[in-house]
């Protein structure tokens, strides 16, 4: 029997993986071949999707991108024996783009069948929980602290400190909430984990529950991810059936169970306090802090709220040790970051690597430059609230502090590449427009500021009192940055101001203004 692997990740489905799998099924049947098709997550090399891998004695040999209409030709060329072909990339594990990564959080993604608990356990699954149960709650929190793991959602707050705060609250109903409202353009790492290795997230949440004394968890998933919703529901049911969720987790004295809840298209619900309000059945409006969710969170109870990637990294920290994880990275940015290469880029996909790699290496070397073949002009890092970087800043290392120093943020790790046809004034206007569409409306700088910002950009782009309006724009951004209740209004100035400072010519600002600014 020959085993082949085809992804069922949305990123593969969106370029035709389903019809490729269907065609393989049909061809195998017509030709009387004994072929088993395993549906996996994605390896994250999306320009090669639909990628078909064939199990051979040398390892899994990849072919991609495969068109359904070419499946017959590939079989005739001997792909089921792993024979060379112009679409063949060799053994996938040895393919440089894949091999050069440090896959810790994504160790299994693209390799296992995401719906199979057996497959998960055959690939080190649930070893983190085993270790956590063996060392107990306090040592588990210490291990996460020691790893240096920081919140991967964007804020970069140390995960272990959140955990310790909740662990120190008196025993009562506590909750684990997973923020799976991945709304930033240019990001898809959460989606990949949930569709490609959902058990690692379930395991991470279970460990969190045990560590802080929480017995119930919610995954708040955006409604734009129907495939992730389906996979998560299946995985949770499998985990429950096998006793990894329930009254006695893995036969221990700890109880933990969980469910997935769907959002309803509000970007702001990715902000943790508005997410909590949404889970409670209210409008997703931002809460003032303090109190912190760790003290007064979901339904007023102590709550850990972590991003998908933070929670999905916990199992490997527990199984291999906090020190092992901390040894990757630089400065205060420890471990690895799943970086997402997106936009107008040749090699779009997920690249997990230790912190410290430069922006230029990511865009030019790993990303291969633009898909359009035109020069890279700007990249936006960290989603719609992240700054635009010009080529001059490509030596910035990927690190929380280095990006802050360059007036930007790494956010959730998305990089969107633009070629030289981009109009940066238009992008600045869009940042304001997006903020106006998605503002929860609770605080004035965000609600009113974004609308006024759009109007200002219209005037600037039309050449109306340009110099005076640019001054007003900077002033408005200052107000939004310091006066908004959360990152939506507070960070919208990043794309606007970075576009203005690095690309003043697109705003019709003369060279004089540029010099004056410096």
């Amino acid at each position, binding site marked *: 029997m020959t085993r082949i692997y085809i992804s069922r990740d949305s990123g593969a489905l*969106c370029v035709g993986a389903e019809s490729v799998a269907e065609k393989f099924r049909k061809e195998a049947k017509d030709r009387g071949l004994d072929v088993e098709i395993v549906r996996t997550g994605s390896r994250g090399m999306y320009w090669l*999707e639909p990628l078909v891998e064939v199990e051979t004695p040398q390892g899994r040999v990849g072919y991609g991108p495969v068109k359904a209409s070419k499946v017959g030709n590939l079989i005739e060329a001997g792909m089921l024996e792993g024979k060379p072909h112009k679409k063949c990339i060799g053994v996938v594990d040895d393919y440089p783009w894949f091999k050069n990564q440090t896959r810790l959080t994504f160790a299994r993604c693209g390799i296992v069948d995401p719906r199979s608990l057996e497959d998960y356990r055959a690939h080190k699954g649930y070893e983190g929980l085993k270790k956590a149960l063996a060392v107990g709650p306090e040592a588990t929190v210490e291990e996460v602290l020691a790893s240096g793991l920081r919140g991967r959602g964007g804020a970069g707050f140390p995960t272990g400190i959140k955990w310790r705060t909740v662990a120190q609250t008196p025993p009562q109903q506590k909750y684990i909430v997973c923020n799976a409202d991945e709304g930033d353009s*240019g990001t898809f790492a959460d989606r990949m984990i949930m569709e490609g290795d959902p058990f690692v997230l379930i395991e991470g949440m279970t460990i969190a529950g045990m560590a802080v004394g929480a017995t119930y968890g919610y995954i708040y998933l955006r409604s734009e991810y129907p495939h992730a919703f389906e996979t998560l529901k299946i995985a949770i049911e499998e985990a429950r059936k096998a006793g990894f969720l329930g009254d006695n987790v893995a036969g221990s004295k700890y109880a933990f169970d969980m469910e997935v809840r769907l959002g309803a298209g509000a970007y702001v619900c990715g902000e943790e306090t508005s997410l909590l309000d949404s*889970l*409670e*059945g209210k409008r997703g409006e931002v809460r003032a802090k303090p109190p912190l969710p760790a003290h007064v969170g979901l339904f007023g109870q102590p709550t850990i709220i972590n991003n998908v990637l933070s929670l999905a990294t916990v199992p490997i920290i527990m199984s291999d040790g906090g020190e092992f994880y901390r040894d990757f990275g630089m400065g205060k940015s420890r471990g690895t970051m799943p970086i997402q290469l997106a936009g107008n880029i040749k090699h779009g996909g997920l690249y997990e690597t230790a912190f410290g790699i430069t922006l230029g290496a990511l865009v030019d070397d790993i990303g291969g430059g633009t*898909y359009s073949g035109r020069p890279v002009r700007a990249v*936006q890092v960290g989603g719609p609230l992240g700054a635009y970087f010009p080529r001059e800043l490509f030596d910035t290392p990927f690190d929380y502090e280095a990006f802050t120093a360059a007036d930007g943020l790494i956010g959730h790790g998305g990089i969107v590449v633009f070629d030289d046809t981009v109009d940066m004034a238009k992008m600045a206007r869009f940042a304001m427009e997006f903020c106006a569409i998605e503002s929860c409306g609770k605080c004035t700088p965000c609600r009113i500021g974004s609308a006024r910002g759009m109007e200002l950009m219209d005037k600037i782009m039309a050449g109306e009192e340009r110099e005076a309006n640019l001054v007003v724009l900077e002033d408005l951004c200052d107000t939004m940055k310091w006066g908004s209740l959360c990152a939506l209004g507070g960070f919208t100035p990043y794309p606007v101001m970075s576009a203005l400072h690095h690309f003043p010519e697109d705003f019709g600002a003369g060279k004089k203004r540029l010099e004056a600014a410096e």
Partner: protein
Amino acid sequence: MPRYEPWTPERASEIIARHQDEKGATLPILHDLQAAFGCVPLDAEPLIADALNISRAEVHGCVTFYHDFRREPAGRRTLKLCLAESCQASGVGALEKRCKEKLGVEMGGTTADRRVTLEAVYCLGLCHSSPAAMLDHDVYGALDEERLDALLKEAQA
């Protein structure tokens, strides 16, 4: 292919009752009502308020806060075109124009034959293969004019 049930308060109450004992049940109820009726009619709001022991204003505020909930059913199929940064960088602007022209509607509009509703969405998480779109729950990436035309044809079929 969505085919919606006719609105009846009895059916709505039945759906609401399924979630009544859940914590923070509002969103699950609204999602299920919309799945059944294609929208959340105004008449559903007092029923939800009664069942959850919250004010009608709270329910109304919730329904109107979220982009997903609609007052009128969408067309037979819903085409969501991503207009976020990654897709903009990959030329969705021209495709958006083409969509509107071919369907004869603006963003948020439904074609006269009620076959297709066109909506803007801000990120489908397929930014590695921008521009991207979603037809009901099916995803499409790496769109160009040719692929978009095929998608529009499927949507209108």
